[in-house]
């Protein structure tokens, strides 16, 4: 009976599918099987009808829009291997091309765009580097980065970097070290990309809780902590592997090339992969980076400082010092943002001639006479036309309780507003006149040395709290010596938590876990130095 019904059903189904019969016509032909047959045929038709679902319209729309916008910029690749294509796209700058509209790369891009977002997030929790699907996953990520625009692109890069961190964590947990170089290299590439975008968008200066630069810093610290768990031989192997992939940095015109001394093993007893990467990425000597690290700054903090220095007239080292002074990155951003303010002259303000900077005599104890060279002296309008007010100068004066004329006096002698801020901050902390700090800086050759001289950083730091100021020594702010930067140690608190959670509170500068180098790391070339 059932076998017979199967045949009849099949006949009817084919006829219905081809439009030859209706279900009713079939029933008329086989009235004896009507009850069972009709239900099954209707079920089949309903399945067909209910199966007419569509992919999410939002994906399709956004993907198509992105594709339309980007199509002309996508390089034409003739290689038929899509994975090679992915590699090329992710490593080549976009080039103008108006070749065929629907070339195959566009197809792949469209595909990647269509199925981005949550789908990829879900997939990431499953595909590990040892999975055959892993290259596909990273390939799709690269494509999504290519077709997205800011600020999505940075968010994606950070999201994908986070995936690499999770993967690295799982690999280390499973002791599957073979895949680690690939994951760490992938992480670093994404971080670099995000950093480039952050510097382009200038989001760093935004004092927002979701500041991408701070997220990057936290990620860097997480990676550092992960790598600290590696056995020494694996860390060396990883470092070697990463170094092979890292091109030699090309010296930038006008900048001094990185020092070609043997890599500093410093407080870590061996070359640190993250330190190498940072040095390469920011074109600063490895020794400088490790000098900061060994002073207790986390790599995350170092990233923040290096990144911020690109937007500021302060050098990375000065920014790190500022962070020590101010206690949190939120405060640092606020101060840097002050320096970033566009300066518009206010014609309504007039200054009494007798209070020009040249006549400022409030320099009680400078041990060294400040004699900037003429070309270094600021000859801007604000120094010659006293009717114009420098807004940043005015803000600094207000912030630190000094006169505008004092600030402009330093400014017109060639100091940048960032440096003036540092000196004022140091003055506020120590009770010594700001002029003394300018003199000390001149003498010592860098703010780091001044800070060291004052005992605020370095092995013999004194951290003298000013009146009414309680030095905040918390496990977070000041790691114990055995937890300072060395293999197996967690990153220092400041690095692990760069966001300012206690604005206004003073945090003691991090100390050294190992004896410092004979000399402080060379000061990172900055802007606005006299």
């Amino acid at each position, binding site marked *: 009976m059932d076998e017979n019904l199967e045949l009849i059903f099949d006949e009817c189904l084919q006829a219905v599918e081809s439009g030859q019969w209706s279900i009713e016509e079939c029933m008329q032909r086989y009235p004896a099987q009507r009850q069972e047959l009709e239900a099954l045929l209707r079920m089949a038709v309903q399945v067909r009808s209910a199966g007419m679902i569509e992919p999410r319209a939002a994906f399709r729309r956004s993907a198509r829009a992105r594709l339309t916008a980007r199509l002309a910029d996508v390089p034409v690749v003739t290689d038929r291997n899509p994975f090679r294509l992915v590699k090329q796209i992710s490593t080549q700058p976009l080039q103008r091309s108006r070749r065929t509209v629907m*070339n195959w790369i*566009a*197809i792949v891009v469209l595909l990647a765009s269509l199925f981005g977002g949550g789908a990829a997030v879900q*997939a990431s929790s499953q595909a590990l580097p040892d999975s055959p699907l892993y290259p596909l996953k990273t390939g799709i990520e690269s494509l999504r980065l290519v077709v997205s625009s800011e600020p999505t692109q940075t968010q994606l890069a950070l999201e994908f970097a986070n995936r690499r961190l999770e993967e690295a964590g799982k690999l280390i947990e499973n002791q599957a070290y073979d895949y680690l170089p690939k994951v760490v290299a992938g992480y670093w590439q994404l971080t670099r990309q995000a950093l480039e975008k952050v510097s382009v968008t200038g989001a760093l200066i935004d004092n927002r809780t979701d500041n991408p630069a701070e997220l990057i810093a936290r990620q860097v610290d997480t990676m550092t902590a992960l790598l600290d768990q590696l056995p020494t031989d694996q860390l060396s192997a990883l470092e070697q592997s990463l170094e092979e992939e890292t091109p030699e940095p090309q010296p930038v015109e006008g900048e001094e090339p990185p020092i070609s001394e043997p890599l500093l093993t410093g407080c870590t007893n061996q070359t640190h992969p993250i330190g190498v990467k940072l040095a390469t990425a920011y074109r600063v000597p490895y020794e400088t980076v490790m000098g900061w690290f060994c002073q207790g700054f986390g790599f995350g903090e170092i990233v923040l400082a290096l990144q911020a220095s690109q937007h500021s007239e302060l050098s990375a080292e000065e920014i790190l010092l500022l962070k020590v002074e101010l206690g949190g990155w939120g405060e640092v951003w606020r101060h840097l943002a002050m320096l970033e303010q566009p300066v518009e002259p206010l014609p309504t303000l007039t200054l009494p001639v007798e209070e020009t900077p040249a006549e400022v005599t409030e320099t009680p104890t400078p041990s060294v006479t400040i004699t900037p060279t003429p070309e270094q002296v600021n000859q801007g309008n604000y120094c010659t036309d006293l009717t114009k007010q420098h807004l940043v100068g005015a803000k600094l004066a207000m912030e630190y309780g000094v006169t505008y004329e004092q600030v402009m006096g330093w400014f017109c002698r060639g100091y940048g507003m960032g440096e003036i801020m540092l000196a004022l901050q140091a003055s506020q902390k120590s009770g010594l006149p700001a002029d003394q700090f300018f003199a000390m800086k001149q003498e010592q050759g860098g703010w780091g040395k001044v800070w060291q001289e004052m005992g605020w950083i370095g092995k013999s730091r004194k951290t003298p709290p000013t009146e009414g100021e309680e030095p905040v020594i918390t496990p977070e702010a000041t790691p114990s010596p055995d937890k300072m930067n060395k293999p197996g140690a967690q990153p220092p608190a400041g690095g692990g938590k760069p966001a300012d959670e206690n604005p206004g509170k003073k945090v003691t500068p991090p100390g050294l876990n190992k004896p410092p180098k004979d000399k402080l790391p060379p000061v990172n070339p900055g802007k606005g130095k006299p």
Partner: protein
Amino acid sequence: MTKAAPHFLSDDDLLKRASSGDKDAYGMLYERYLVPIYRYCYFRVSSELDAEDLTEMVFLKAWENLPKKQVQSFRAWLYRIAHNLVVDYLRTRKNSTPLELLEIPTDAQSHPEQAFLNREDGRVLVNAIARLEEQDQEVLVCRFVSQLSHAETAAVLGLNESHVRVLQFRALKKLQALLGGGKQDG
């Protein structure tokens, strides 16, 4: 020489061109099969997000392996790739998160077919199909969701046509029973 309008090209023609490097041709194939392949994946894995991922993989894998020689049916070939990827996916998923199935609405008990229309047709159906055995799922999705012919379904699943006919009938009956509209047939 004017190019023929791609819309009028058969799968075989497009495949031939795509295999020799014609990117437009592959684009047309992609446009043609994006939604059907997505539907197939969606009904097999019961997850929108996973279906999206899998669909993407199907087209990437297809591109990577475009056949140099003429295949009997590009459609069946493409679905075969989808089938393999889904099988792999399901194998890994078995070891991880169990599939959460939706409750079948109560009004499906009396009028199962109508229930599809009345209440989240697709989702109810997807979840009902997901409760079937894998081979039943495969046949139903190939035959009725993807609307493949018996021959194509046989090619995708590696079965012979008569087996597909039997399986589709039984799978439909099981689905019907599952939805409360009839007695289950083993």
